[in-house]
């Protein structure tokens, strides 16, 4: 992947000149435009056939084998969480810049910073978004803000046109074409970006005011290979209902503990959807985002790792709106999990090449983070059901499936592993100083059930509608 060459110096382009699907056209093997390759399909069919035949011929042995593999996976995942959370304590886990450090480097010439804000049918958030970005502590003449709007999204276009945009702000119309995804819009924005650095924000995002300056300092003080800096994301509406409480607890654990831990370990980082800052030229050289991948950010994080680049975490927060409606939450989570499945299949098209490019340790990170995350939400219901049946009815059949050591490992995962996962959420809340949410985090297992439901929905959708983008509904906090 390091053989990627960009088209630097191609200035003065218009929207019509830009190919937002360049990645899928020039390097189709890196794109989810084809969800699974033929060898992958053949392997999957062979694996399923092998499992089915085993269950028919030697049902008990087959079931014991499957359960042993799953138990081993749970053990490794739990240990992995320990390692990642332990690593998050490292000073190198997150880049920190105090207000004094920022003030000390003034006066100085700040580089042009491009900001991309993709929006779709969100007229009510345009005003807030413009105000929020205009208020950011960065020289107005160095801001290059593009509001990316679909050409047929008349309501949002009208709302944007009705405003007097500050200097440095512009609206970029995205021509109607397939697929209608956020990354496709971002690719057009990337081509038109003027800044040395570039960041993506969602329409409802409220980034901390000094975030752009911190990002610049982070790039300037980090080694050359650091081409992406991920800000922490959190929610401003945790108290809205129980769903937003759980969601906030999960985000606190993910962005405040797990991602810093991964950064400290030098691992591949599945980027968050917004507030990831890039060196523009490198991103252009990598041909931007995969327009067919519904978690293009996660995929890009892996591609950065494959190309030998590094991502770091930055101590600054972008406040977002937590989805407060269960239906929309399930749609959003389905998309995320489907995207993880897409990403896993894209990069596993040639596993040996992936191993060579990422290295053994990062390869393992990739498997546990991207593949393992989805695998666990898919198999969890099976194990919950078995545990429940065993506790209530104590049938001999279930006990037979867990021979000695597998039973011990399974029991450890059931009692220790699940506790660790809940405790990590508590820790995340504590670190975020959201102490009130900690009590709600004790009920996280209910949230896991919802995640598993979305996971199965995503798994089915991956085969039926791989490119469907179930958009997250924002602005619910205002409506409520």
């Amino acid at each position, binding site marked *: 992947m390091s053989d990627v060459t960009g088209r630097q110096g191609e200035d003065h382009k218009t929207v019509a000149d830009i190919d937002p699907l360049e990645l899928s056209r020039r390097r189709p093997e890196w794109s989810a435009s084809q969800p699974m390759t033929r060898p992958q399909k053949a392997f999957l069919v062979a694996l399923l056939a092998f499992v089915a035949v085993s269950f028919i011929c030697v049902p008990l042995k087959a079931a014991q084998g499957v359960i042993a593999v799953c138990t081993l996976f749970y053990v490794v995942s739990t240990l992995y969480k320990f390692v990642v959370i332990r690593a998050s*304590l490292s000073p190198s886990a997150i880049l920190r810049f105090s207000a004094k450090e920022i003030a000390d480097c003034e006066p100085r010439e700040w580089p042009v910073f491009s900001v991309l804000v993709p929006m779709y049918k969100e007229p009510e958030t345009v005003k807030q978004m413009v105000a929020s970005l205009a208020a950011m502590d960065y020289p107005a003449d160095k801001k290059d803000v593009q509001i990316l709007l679909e050409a047929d999204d008349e309501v949002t276009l009208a709302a944007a046109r009705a405003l007097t945009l500050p200097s440095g702000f512009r609206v970029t119309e995205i021509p109607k074409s397939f697929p209608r995804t956020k990354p496709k819009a971002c690719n057009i924005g990337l081509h038109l970006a003027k800044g040395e650095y570039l960041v993506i924000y969602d329409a409802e995002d409220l980034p901390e005011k000094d975030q752009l300056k911190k990002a610049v300092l982070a790039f300037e003080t980090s080694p050359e290979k650091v081409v992406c800096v991920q800000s922490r994301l959190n929610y401003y509406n945790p108290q809205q209902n129980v769903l937003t409480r759980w969601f906030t607890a999960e985000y606190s654990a993910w962005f405040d503990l797990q991602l810093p831990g991964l950064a400290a370990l030098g691992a591949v980082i599945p980027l968050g959807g917004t507030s990831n800052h890039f060196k523009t030229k490198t991103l252009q050289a990598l041909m931007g985002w995969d327009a067919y991948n519904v978690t293009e950010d996660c995929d890009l994080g892996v591609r950065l790792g494959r190309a030998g680049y590094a991502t770091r975490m930055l101590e600054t927060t972008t406040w977002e709106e937590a989805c407060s409606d269960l239906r929309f939450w399930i749609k959003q989570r389905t998309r995320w999990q489907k995207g993880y499945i897409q990403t896993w299949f894209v990069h596993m098209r040639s596993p040996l090449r992936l191993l060579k490019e990422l290295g053994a340790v990062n390869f393992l990170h990739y498997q546990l983070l991207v593949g393992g995350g989805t695998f666990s939400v898919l198999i969890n219901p099976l194990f919950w059901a078995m545990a429940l049946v065993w*506790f209530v009815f104590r049938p001999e059949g279930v006990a037979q499936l867990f*021979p*000695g*050591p597998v*039973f*011990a490992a399974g029991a*450890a995962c059931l*009692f220790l592993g699940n*506790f660790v996962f809940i*405790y990590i959420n*508590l*820790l995340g*809340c*504590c*670190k975020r*100083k959201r*102490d009130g949410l*900690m*009590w709600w985090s004790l009920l996280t297992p209910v949230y896991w059930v919802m995640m598993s439901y979305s996971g199965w929905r995503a798994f089915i959708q991956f085969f039926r509608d791989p490119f469907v983008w179930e958009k997250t509904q924002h602005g619910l906090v205002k409506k409520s």
Partner: protein
Amino acid sequence: MDQDRKTYRLVRLLTGGVTPVLLAGALLAFARLHDGAWEPGVQVAGICRELIAGTTEGRQALFGSCWMAPLPVLFYLPFAWLLPEPVAGWAAFFAAWLFVFWAVREAVKAAGVSGWRIVLAQAALAGMMVVSRQPQALQIATALTTGLALLTAASLADWAAFRRLRDVVATGATGAFLLLCGISFFGPATLAVGLLPFAACGHRETRSRFQAWLLLGWLPMVYTAGVWLLMNRLILGDSFYFLRSVQHLVPRVYLFLPAVLAPGFLLVPALIATWAIDARKATPGSGGTAASALLISLALVLMASAQVYRLFGLGWDTVKLSVCVLAVLMIALARLRQPFFRLAVSLVLFVWLSTLWLGGEAPVSVPESRDQICKEVEDHVNARTQYGRIFVLGYAGLDLLRDYTGERLVPNMDLHVGSQRRAYKGQNLYVLVPRPVGQVRAESVFWKYPDIYEQGAERLLYAGTFGSWRLFEVVSAPTQEQLDEWKKVR
């Protein structure tokens, strides 16, 4: 910058890798010279054998007693599964002591003590184990409790000193694991973890987050206790099964519980000192003095706990507590900032003084010949019937059967004479009972049938004595098949 990083890596390798490996290896070599000292504790290997075989007895043994704690068994289980004995015992011993030396490093380094001083502290602890000549002090159960007690005490002290989130987590987690080390540590672990949120009340900033410290600190221990209760309910049918022996052993159990927690009063002065120092500081954290006060107070709590158990006639497990007291005191000494030479002298002096203390502990009794007893019992029963089945009772029974490969003798953790008769209808049943001395008094059979060893019990008739064991025959009316067989013989 690079030089600093290189030095840091070297120190980390020295204190976290080379020294612990060398010292654990040296202790293993030393322990092998002392018969039985390297063994994985009295019954741990027997329980693991049953667990690997997937028997009900194994599961009952894992959770069924507060005296035979689950943690050493769970620690030993992977070794027993992967390696043959005695290699499993050596490997577990080595790993347990590696953990202790790593714990020493973690306990000392937070106070800003440099590399060679950590090595000195690690060597002093190893020296203390060697010169004490106390085989029980070297067993893996003692090593695990020592390591956990060190981590609990040091992280609580660091919490008082620096108010770091990681110290709350470490105290909560190690305290919960300490709870799984047996009833001797119930009091000290509960007190250490219980103190955690209150220790933060001195400063306004941390006091306002009391519920966070309460949840993060207490939850692991509450959850661990809950799981232990649940396991007892699921496996033995009684949530408090593992504690029932206390009712039998302690005549006034209503005094025992307050007595176990009474050493908590020893923590009050250190707590007040922590509050006083913390309240006067601009940022939370009461510094090294309060940390030292807490460490010494926790050592006193461990010491007082040992006295409480002796007072109630349960002092057979106090070697572990004594080793923990000495280890915590030694850590408190090693954390003090003093010149290297003075630290070395004071640690040597401390090791020498510790021999006086540990030398006073009762030595472990010489184990009986397990194979011989099993063979004699088997021969005795075979001479009388070819349908005999002998239930060897309790944890002592699991130890007796460690190397037994026959089918006549079977372990039994929860004796129900009636249900065994129904389950083994037509067979001649026997019960092999250990002598109720020391920790064996806590076996479930003695709170169910208090006079069984001396007088037998209903339907149990004395059949012989083998070493310290007594064999009883289960008397029952003959079945029709047995009557027919006897008629044929006549």
